[in-house]
């Protein structure tokens, strides 16, 4: 019965909802019963379909009435009228003038929450543009609301432009679509900040006039007004400062970055005032009885529901106001950190800066700001340095190649110059890409690092050729000097770093199963870190050779015997750290082997794959690299075979060996001058592991069948082993 009545109702209203073409030949015939009857004749599981349409196509259909897939569903389930801005104003649901202070505060706070939700990857249509006021600020008569709406739009617009330009986002990070909304493009940035400033000054006057005077009896109404004015003032000022800071980032000069940093500090100072006045704003009216969103004056969560593409995150959960302040304070901290990049001018320092920044998993806006600050346009780095010069400096600092030393005859040799210049030009792109990769989110980085190895392999090849050519040139001109594997060492160093980063990030992303740990740590300790250390020491000796020559030249010039200064080698810290990492990896490798011997590693039932398939998959990106050559599974099995030792070590021997490795790592790290947080983090893993390994070597809980636990909370690459 219900069915029938709904059909009749349908007949009545159809003309309105259907386009012209459909209406003309709208000789629709109801076949419901017929169709259902015919369907029943089909077999269970049988699909009736065209030849060209199969199960595969059927899979990609969106499912109607599934709240996860059907964006149109929610809009149809609420029992209220969804009005757009003009309609809402006409119907008197919202006002464009005479907004009370609590209303303004509430609307602004909700807007901030929407802004953050957008920055966290939701669409503008479901966040900022659920605020009806920003749909058309021209219609707003209230000066504070108008300036604020324009300010928010400008902030969104600049943020969007920055993120788009930096291109370090993926669909899971950011939605750049504006759905045809105007982002206050008819008003200049300056005009908007000016309007905000005017409102701010007005409010400041009101704050001052309502301030309590000494000896005066305080009128609670005035006191309330004072508080609320102050709250609104903080919000308007916050908006203005944030906008001004973002505008500063769009300027080309480096000085504007430090200006932005100052502005961010001022912005942060306002946060306590905003936090303490959250309660002054009107709160959302909750009628969530039907799974509806909380409704806030001036907001209509469903206003844009029809604009959303069919397959879409159907429901954006807007963050709460308390979290908003906290998020802003973290965002401001991140942006302040970004500003510090201008103090680093050395390429390796910058790479480290990007790596470190990325380790905190920063938001897409701060990542993008870092990218655009670093590479304002394609040639200039940090607005002033050329990428070319930066690479030259990095080479000088790392291996001191004779060709880049003014004391060497190659320095002014045209041919040599051509070689080195074209090499450096070719370096520019891979290094820019590498820096860009570090701007992506952590999961995407890994994938991209795997791909960039190909580019570094090509670069490696060229570096070796240029080295050989320069060496033969140098032999003719200055037979006592060498130019062997200078550029090659430098490129190799970066390739190795990428490979190590690639493998280690798998731990952070929790990609590896426990039974895979042993070959990953083996590859790192026996192979990659070993290569890294030999590369570093080759670079170090190349530096020393160059220094000796320079010293000799000086001594000859001044004939005075220069005092031999004991200088710390520039690369010594990195060599030390690599040793520590290598020991940690070796310790983990031996631990895993021994645990396996004791039957404490759960192995999967390999049915469709095998360990070899997994191994090859894990190290697949390394196949594109020539130096270091990839270690194939068969080689790995041979190299790691314990039977080649007589007598073959038992699990107790291996635990003891592992303990020694952790001990060694601890020793190395404890002697690092001025330890950074990373040193302490590794120590936090090494120390307990020494003890656990010693216990295990002594036969502690040997019989227990409970699997050990690996706790990565102290360090993301090395776990604390726990035996229960």
């Amino acid at each position, binding site marked *: 019965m219900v069915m029938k009545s709904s059909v009749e109702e349908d007949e009545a209203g159809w003309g309105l909802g259907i386009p012209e073409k459909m209406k003309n030949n709208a*000789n629709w015939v109801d076949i419901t019963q017929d169709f259902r009857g015919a369907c029943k004749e089909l077999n269970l599981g049988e699909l009736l379909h065209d030849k060209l349409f199969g199960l595969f196509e059927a899979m990609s259909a969106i499912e109607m009435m599934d709240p996860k897939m059907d964006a149109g569903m929610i809009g149809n389930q609420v029992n209220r009228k969804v009005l757009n801005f003009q309609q809402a104003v006409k119907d008197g649901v919202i006002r464009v003038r005479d907004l009370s202070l609590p209303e303004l505060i509430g609307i602004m706070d909700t807007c901030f929450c929407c802004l953050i939700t957008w920055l966290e990857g939701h669409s503008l249509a479901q966040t900022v543009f659920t605020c009806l006021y920003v749909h058309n600020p021209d219609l707003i008569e209230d000066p504070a609301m108008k300036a604020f709406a324009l300010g928010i739009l400008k902030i969104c617009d600049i943020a969007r432009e920055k993120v788009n330009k930096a291109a370090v986002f993926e669909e899971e990070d950011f939605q750049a679509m504006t759905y045809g909304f105007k982002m206050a493009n008819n008003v200049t940035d300056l005009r908007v900040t000016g309007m905000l400033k005017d409102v701010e000054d007005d409010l400041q006057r009101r704050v001052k006039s309502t301030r309590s005077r000494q000896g005066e009896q305080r009128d609670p109404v005035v006191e309330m007004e004072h508080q609320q004015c102050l709250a609104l003032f903080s919000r308007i000022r916050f908006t203005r400062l944030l906008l001004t800071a973002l505008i500063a980032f769009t300027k080309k000069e480096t000085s504007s970055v430090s200006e932005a940093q100052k502005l961010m500090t001022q912005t942060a100072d306002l946060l306590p005032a905003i936090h303490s006045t959250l309660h002054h704003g009107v709160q959302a009216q909750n009628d969530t009885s039907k799974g509806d969103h909380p409704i806030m004056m001036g907001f209509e969560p469903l206003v844009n529901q029809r604009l959303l593409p069919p397959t879409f995150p159907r429901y954006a959960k807007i963050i709460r106001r308390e979290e908003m302040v906290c998020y802003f304070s973290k965002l401001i901290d991140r942006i302040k950190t970004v500003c510090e990049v201008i103090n680093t001018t050395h390429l390796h320092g910058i790479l480290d800066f990007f790596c470190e920044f990325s380790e905190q998993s920063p938001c897409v806006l701060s990542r993008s700001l870092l990218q655009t600050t670093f590479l304002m346009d394609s040639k200039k780095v940090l607005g002033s340095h050329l990428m070319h010069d930066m690479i030259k400096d990095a080479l000088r600092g790392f291996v001191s190649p004779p060709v880049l030393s003014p004391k060497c005859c190659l320095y002014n040799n045209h041919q040599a110059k051509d070689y080195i210049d074209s090499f450096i030009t070719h370096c520019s792109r891979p290094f820019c890409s590498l820096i860009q990769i570090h701007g992506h989110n952590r999961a995407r980085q890994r994938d991209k690092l795997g791909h960039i190895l190909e580019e570094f392999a090509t670069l490696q090849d060229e570096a070796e050729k240029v080295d050989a050519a320069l060496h033969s040139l140098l032999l003719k001109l200055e037979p006592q000097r060498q130019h062997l594997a200078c550029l090659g060492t430098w490129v190799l160093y970066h390739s190795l770093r990428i490979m190590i980063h690639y493998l280690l990030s798998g731990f952070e992303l929790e990609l590896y199963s426990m039974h895979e740990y042993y070959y990953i740590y083996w590859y790192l300790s026996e192979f990659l870190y070993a290569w890294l250390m030999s590369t570093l020491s080759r670079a170090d000796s190349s530096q020393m050779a160059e220094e000796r020559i320079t010293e000799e030249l000086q001594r000859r010039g001044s004939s005075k015997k220069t005092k031999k200064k004991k200088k710390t080698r520039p690369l010594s810290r990195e060599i030390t750290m690599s040793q520590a990492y290598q020991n940690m990896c070796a310790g983990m490798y031996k631990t895993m082997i021994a645990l396996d011997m004791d039957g404490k590693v759960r192995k999967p039932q390999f049915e469709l794959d095998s360990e070899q398939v997994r191994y090859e998959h894990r190290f697949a990106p390394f196949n594109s690299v020539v130096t270091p050559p990839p270690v194939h599974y068969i080689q790995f099995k041979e190299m790691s075979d314990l039977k080649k030792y007589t007598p073959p070590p038992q699990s107790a021997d291996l635990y003891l060996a592992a303990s020694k490795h952790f001990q060694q790592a601890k020793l190395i790290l404890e002697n690092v001058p001025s330890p950074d947080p990373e040193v302490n983090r590794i120590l936090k893993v090494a120390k307990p592991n020494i003890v656990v390994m010693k216990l295990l070597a002594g036969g502690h809980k040997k019989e227990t069948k409970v699997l050990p636990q690996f706790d990565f909370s102290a360090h993301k690459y090395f776990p604390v082993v726990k035996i229960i």
Partner: protein
Amino acid sequence: MAAMNEENGTAVYNAVEASGPSLARQKLENLLNKSMRIRMTDGRTLVGLFLCTDRDCNVILGSAQEFLKSTDSFSQGEPRVLGLAMIPGHHVVSIEVESDSLLSPRVI
């Protein structure tokens, strides 16, 4: 019109019963790639090409467009493009096809 439809419906339904499952299948196959209008339990109507169905009357429409019920403030004649959409059988309220698609040759 409604009365006529129902009469039409029952007539065909009887015919299906009379001549067994193969005719039912033929009948559905004749509808493939024809325009179809499906009303759902929440009042929305989808118009698209009929591509696939099964025993539970789950229907897949291609190039589907979504129309809201006319009482809604948003149905200013603007359909929303959905593309490939599956309507679960238990959410199907009514199915309609254009009259001429029923006239297509039937296998006897």
